[in-house]
């Protein structure tokens, strides 16, 4: 457990000292949100209708930006080999890196989302659902993304390939996440979308470390 926490702490401090930590992701989030009205026009009802889905899509894109460095830096400087040789199972190491990645990308985006939703004129009633759905669903971006990052670790041009590998895996999460918010805005009964989102999240939590570790072992062999 202490090795797990040490790895999380290491990745967090690396993210803060080298990559600007959560602020880079937030800046990206803010920039694309500013681009949407510039691109489609500043009609408030159009923006309000699109807000929930758009924020979920940009959360997925923001996660993609940082994913290609998830294992790349460690593969380059050899710390990945050290991790694989250590006592901590490689699956737990993958999980620790996902946790650190989520803490620096998914969590800040979830907390900042209401402000951006306000800028996009999202109808009242969806704000709680937006934060809650991002908190529950965005770990999938880190977890499913880790599989793609592990498969492309050590490749010279892994970034573009990574997005192609990972985006199909993001499809259900974006559907259920945006669906949760839309249902809340429409005052729909029942929370099927949210439960399905939570189920996808738990599913990814179980399977992604296994698949990610299997993919890393290929590159280490």
């Amino acid at each position: 457990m202490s090795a797990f926490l040490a790895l999380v702490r290491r990745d967090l401090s690396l993210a803060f000292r080298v990559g600007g930590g959560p602020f880079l992701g937030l800046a990206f989030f803010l920039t694309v949100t500013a681009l949407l009205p510039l691109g489609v026009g500043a009609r408030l009802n159009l923006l309000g209708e699109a807000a929930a889905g758009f924020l979920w899509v940009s959360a997925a894109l923001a996660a993609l930006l940082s994913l290609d460095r998830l294992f790349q830096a460690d593969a380059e400087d050899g710390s990945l080999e050290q991790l694989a040789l250590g006592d901590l199972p490689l699956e737990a190491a993958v999980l620790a890196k996902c946790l650190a990645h989520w803490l620096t990308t998914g969590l800040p985006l979830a907390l900042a989302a209401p402000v951006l939703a306000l800028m996009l004129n999202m109808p009242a009633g969806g704000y709680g659902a937006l934060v809650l759905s991002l908190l529950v669903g965005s770990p999938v971006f880190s977890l499913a993304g880790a599989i793609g990052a592990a498969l492309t670790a050590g490749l010279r041009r892994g970034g573009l390939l990574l997005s192609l590998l990972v985006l199909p895996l993001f499809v259900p999460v974006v559907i259920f996440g945006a669906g949760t918010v839309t249902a809340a805005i429409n005052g729909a009964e029942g929370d099927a979308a949210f439960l399905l989102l939570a189920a996808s999240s738990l599913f990814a939590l179980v399977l992604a470390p296994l698949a990610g570790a299997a993919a890393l072992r290929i590159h280490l062999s």
Partner: protein
Amino acid sequence: MLRYANPKRFLDLSAALLPWLWLAAAGLTLTGLYQAIFLVPPDYQQGDTVRIMYVHVPSAWMASFIYGFMFVASVVGLVWKHPLADAAAKEAAPIGAMFTAVCLITGALWGKPMWGTYWIWDARLTSMLVLLFLYLGYLGVWAAIEDRAKAARAAAVLCVVGVVNIPIIRFSVEWWDTLHQGPSVVRFEGGKLAPSIDPSMLWPLLIVGLGCTLLFFALLFVRMRTEIRRRRIRALLAAQAGG
């Protein structure tokens, strides 16, 4: 040399099978398409455009079937580290991607007269599109990793992850479709794969489907033979350079 023992047997076997496979594939596909184009009566709602179905539906079947085939080959390759299974999965992927693309293109061409637009975001089209992305990602992994053995295992892991995800993606897209279904879209229940399809229309469809399956195996065998020989040439060149 043990490594080549099985590929050798495969080369002999496939050489004997291939002419018959080609003959049966061409015969069935052409017979089915002939019936579909000249003998099947036009649909009472869709008219002659219903004939697109005889290319569209078999391609959709093949697109799913080939991904399933790749999954089996990938698992065999991962568990038994059999180079022939890796080659089978690798060489099936471009054929599957082609069938997926044919399915999407014929779907769009069929959509124009039926729905009034080339593309609608309905559940089937969208999940086919995602399947195409899965194929492209799989091909991308093979292209990006230079070490063949590593590429085989990475691609196999990706294929297994994809198969685990396909049901979730399909379910989520269908769920999404029920939410977003626009009332303006005209839907025809009688055409596509409805259980009430008339036997005179069903038989040509099944014949083309079987023909496409044989065509897939014929293409696959040719591609695998090429891959095996490519590997041999590479090994020979490496031995020459080394010796």
